[in-house]
């Protein structure tokens, strides 16, 4: 089936993008037993171009420096490199090293150290109900990568400090061969720029290219109802977890996300001006939209009456283009246009069982990655992955869930990439370079 299917896809691809000769590779990932959560996220990230480029660059620099490391990031980099350098454009690959590494590093309690997912009291349950939550894995992966990068930078910085005098020469030497040796000059330059910058002011806030790509800023505005003072606090995020409602759009859910809520009763807000607890209004809006906006739809909800997590298969439609409505007034690029580049889809009516697949945009067409199977997807059928418009899912007795199950393929993580990424980035890079020099 695999071979046949892939050759079919190969044919389709060659007919469709004869014009666009970007040599993309579409490789299915072998499932090592319940690793679809992992495969789906990896595929999505592979087709998030900025992410892939950085990972491949990482691999290249590593190779150049001659250091041999073995961590999750290098495993991922090797995997990406493998896919990108295959002879055939379509095929299957086994992410064995990566999975092994992942399992080894995490033992049994996978992802529990995840700082981004606020599980609070649910965390124990969380372990049970879904060991393989794709969103958790996504967060885990981003965090691991950024931690690894930060550690490496620290090590590098210490090294530079020790050989402080060589520093200047070191940088220039670094730049030249890199630019010469790589095809993508701009990317390389930028990467180097960041490395340089990293040397200088990473002390206060450690940022990596993970943050550059995924990090946005939320601003949390609270207005005391007594003295009318508005205070705001900024918060970084790598992805947004959005509550979903039946028969809505992601646009609407984002709007609801930024709705005003009133803090009263137990939740009263301590107002510094009043020096006391006061009723207040609060809302959260996006101050800095990230380059790559990852939206996690909170489809897994704990239902008290059932004493378990349930999947909300609500129909939440997502457009291929998106602009944010819930940006703060002072937001930079507040009205930037986003394009959907990848979607992790959860299939199945319950959280415990189920499957993950990934929809991906490459060049001008869409593909479905279902573990090792890769197929072309008609754009017009994207809507089928929005979820179900029936309200029946939760209320229905378990026996009846077989019917909706068929249609419960619903988007779980959406990856929206800001348009003009390439155009924006040199600019950004330039700025950061400048600031580096001034500092």
């Amino acid at each position, binding site marked *: 089936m695999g071979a046949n299917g892939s050759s079919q896809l190969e044919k389709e691809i060659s007919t469709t993008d004869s014009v666009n000769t970007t040599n993309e590779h579409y490789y299915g990932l072998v499932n090592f037993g319940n690793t679809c959560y992992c495969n789906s996220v990896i595929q999505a990230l592979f087709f998030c171009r900025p992410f892939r480029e950085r990972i491949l660059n990482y691999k290249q620099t590593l190779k150049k420096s001659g250091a041999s490391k073995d961590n999750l990031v290098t495993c991922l980099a090797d995997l990406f490199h493998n896919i990108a350098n295959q002879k055939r454009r379509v095929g299957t690959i086994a992410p064995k090293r990566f999975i092994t590494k992942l399992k080894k590093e995490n033992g049994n309690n996978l992802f529990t150290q995840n700082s981004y997912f606020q599980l609070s009291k649910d965390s124990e349950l969380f372990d049970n109900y879904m060991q393989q939550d794709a969103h958790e894995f996504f967060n885990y992966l981003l965090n691991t990568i950024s931690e690894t990068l930060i550690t490496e930078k620290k090590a590098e910085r210490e090294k530079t400090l020790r050989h402080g005098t060589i520093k200047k020469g070191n940088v220039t030497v670094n730049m030249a061969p890199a630019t010469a040796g790589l095809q993508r000059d701009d990317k390389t330059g930028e990467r180097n720029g960041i490395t340089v910058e990293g040397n200088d002011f990473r002390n206060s806030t450690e940022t990596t290219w993970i943050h550059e790509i995924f990090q946005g800023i939320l601003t949390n505005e609270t*207005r005391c109802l007594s003295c009318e003072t508005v205070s705001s606090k900024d918060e970084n995020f790598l992805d947004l977890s959005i509550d979903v409602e039946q028969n809505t759009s992601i646009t609407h859910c984002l709007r609801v996300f*930024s709705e005003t809520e009133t803090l009263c009763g137990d939740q009263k807000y301590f107002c510094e001006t009043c020096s006391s607890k006061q009723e207040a209004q609060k809302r959260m809006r996006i101050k800095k939209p990230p380059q790559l906006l990852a939206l996690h739809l909170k489809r897994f909800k704990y239902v008290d009456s059932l004493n378990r997590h349930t999947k909300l298969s609500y129909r939440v439609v997502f457009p*291929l283009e998106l602009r944010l409505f819930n940006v703060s007034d002072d937001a930079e690029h507040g009205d930037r246009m986003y394009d959907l580049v990848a979607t992790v889809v959860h299939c199945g009516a319950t959280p415990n069982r189920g499957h993950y697949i990934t929809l991906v945009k490459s060049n001008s067409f869409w593909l479905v990655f279902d573990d090792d199977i890769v197929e072309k997807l008609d*754009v017009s059928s994207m809507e089928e992955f929005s979820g179900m418009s029936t309200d029946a899912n939760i209320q*229905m007795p378990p026996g009846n869930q077989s019917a909706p199950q068929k249609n419960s393929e619903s988007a779980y993580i959406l990856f929206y990439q800001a348009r003009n990424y390439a155009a924006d980035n040199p600019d950004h890079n330039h700025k950061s370079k400048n600031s580096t020099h001034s500092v």
Partner: protein
Amino acid sequence: MMQQHMLGPSTSLGGNNNSALQSSVLSDGVLLSHSQPTREEIKKSFVAEDGVYRIVQSAELSRPRPLPHYQMAPGLGAAANQIAFAGSTVRVSFLNAATNSAGTPDTAAGSSSFYEKKELNGSPTRLEDNEDAADIICFNVGKELYVYAYRGTQTDTDLSRPIDKRVYKGTSPTYHIFNQETSGTGTCQLVIGFTLGQLQIIDPLDKTTPVPTSKLYNEDRYIDKTSVTCIRFLPGDSNIFLASHVSGNLYVYDERVSASSSSSNGSSQPPPWIVQNEGEKYTTYGWKSKNPRNPVTRWQIGEGSIHQFNFSGPDAKMMATVSHDGFLRVFMYETQELIAVMKSYFGGLLTLAWSPDAKLIATGGEDDLLTVYSVVQKKVVCRGQAHKSWISQVQFDPYVVRRSKKDSESNGIAPTTTLDDVSREVTMRSGPSSSGEPSYGIPKAVSTLSKSSLASSNTINGTQKGDEIVYRIGSVGHDTFLCLWDITNDMLNQSNHRRHRNSTIIAPPIGLDCPSNQMMGRLEDLPEISPGGAGGSSTASDSQHNTLTQNQSAPQEKPKKKRFNRKAFGLSKFTSGGSSNASSSGQRTNTLSGAGTSSDGTRRNTPGITSQISCCKETRLLGSTFCPGIRDVPIIEPLTCKKVSHDRLTVLEFRKDCVVTACQEGFICTWSRPSDKDDMKQEGVNSTAAATPESEQKPSVSATASSYGYGSEMSNGIPPSRSSSAYSNHELQQLRSPNATSPSYRVAAASTSAYHRPTYAWQNAN
């Protein structure tokens, strides 16, 4: 049912044809919504400015098997209809009785070729005696296609006895349309498009012919393999119809030309098209050969599916298309010339509708926004925000009476409309038409307006065109909501401000204390802003108005200075709503109109600044007139916005005596319009009401009693403070009369916003 019972009082108040209706209608809304506090409840009636629209449950149509969904638990009802989900979009088409009278029925016509098998259970209906008076309705659900008699609100159809029923195999109907012109006694033409791209012409009425007439186009799918999205007959030539496909192609078929596929030579290659015309992102093709073959012409437009297209009017002068690439394109049909382009705010455009006078196009799509585009001015007039999901269908309501201005009745002048007025109005409307513009507006406008003048003899005020509501737009969406929007002449004018009486009426985000309030975020997210050009031609009344509001708006002037931002932002956030904020409410209630205007003014002032700034950042298309920034165009709110279905809505049709909606589950609902009877009662009530402010209070008092605001219909948030705002409205009623002459509209506008601005205006502000 209880529902009905509760509606009782509002019946007498609703349907208010008199133009004094602002407040009474509002309070009706309050009353109505009071009876339906439950979240997610499906509304069976709603109030618009012209009265109460009610669902006629007996007229509901669906596939024969399912029970009407009102009799079922919501969940089960939906679950029972799983079939519908995966299928193609449910569509409805009508054949109007005027051109049709039913013929003699026959039992099953032999099955035509193709994938279809005929009539499963029960023989096709014998048409009943009075059948000939009926219109014909056709709708598709999944793979099935049904044809029934339709009598508007009088429809009482036995679902088990359709005129025709077809079940297709392997392909599903996606779109169908009757040929209104060729239908005669016992015969009609129904063109059906399918998911696999085929087109079929059938005669569902013709039961006599042993082999029923059925023509097929694109049968072997050589022409196009993708699903049919929309079909239209070319106005003025009933032999020509056009079909658009997911592939982004639109084909013109001529029935006089042989239906057989062009590639009869056995080659499976697509037919050799010759380029006729080329323009930006579109190409038209024809044939080289002398012998015409079908399709006669091919238009390739934009990228991705052409979701809908339509002609500007009976003259077929212009054709507009909306595509998945988010573009609205307007072509001169004959010359195949692209004359206007608009881009959605983001995402695909799914639907469009021409205004009856062909000057405006309303679109809806994946940005959840209604966008009103002026073909004359080639710019976006306004955007409407209320839907919580994609908009699947927009329509102009050509029948809604365009009357009513507050001024007229506050003037005490309620001149009977004369033909003069009507024609003047028409002239005015068609006045700006340049050579390139449609002239079609005239006849249509006359009919609409004269109808209106008949319906209510005292409403159109001939003296002031300024704030007349010129257009009524309806929209339905994937969110299961039906919204009605009014577009006034003011909004159409260059110098318009953010004072859209009707659109502001329902400021939905009321319930702060309701966290699940879906609509709440809307206003806060989207600063309501007048177009950047607003300052350009401000009138005397403007400046007057501005003076009024200066203190309030003063703090807004600086908000864009860098460091000030946060603070100013806070101010703008909270001030404009200030009227109802806890701290300032007392003070504001004393000067209600002031409060109203202030929020109005605030809104008006901020945008200019913002738009300047945002303009600098815009890249090429985005932010240009093709796709203005969100702050560069006024955002309007709907007149009414109701959840009317369990499943996503796919159809909205305005008919003379009713409004028809359909959802993906396959339920076709008929809504009665505010009836003349109601109107009569109404006028009685209203004339007394208008006479004294006290009597005006009557409805409002009930409104107070049932403090579920309009907002609850949309938001379910029920702010306890409703009553005070209701009160404010009385004050405004009184205020209005001294101000009766022309500029008073502003006061009126202010009053509405005073009334509607929610108590916790934070989310409204800014």
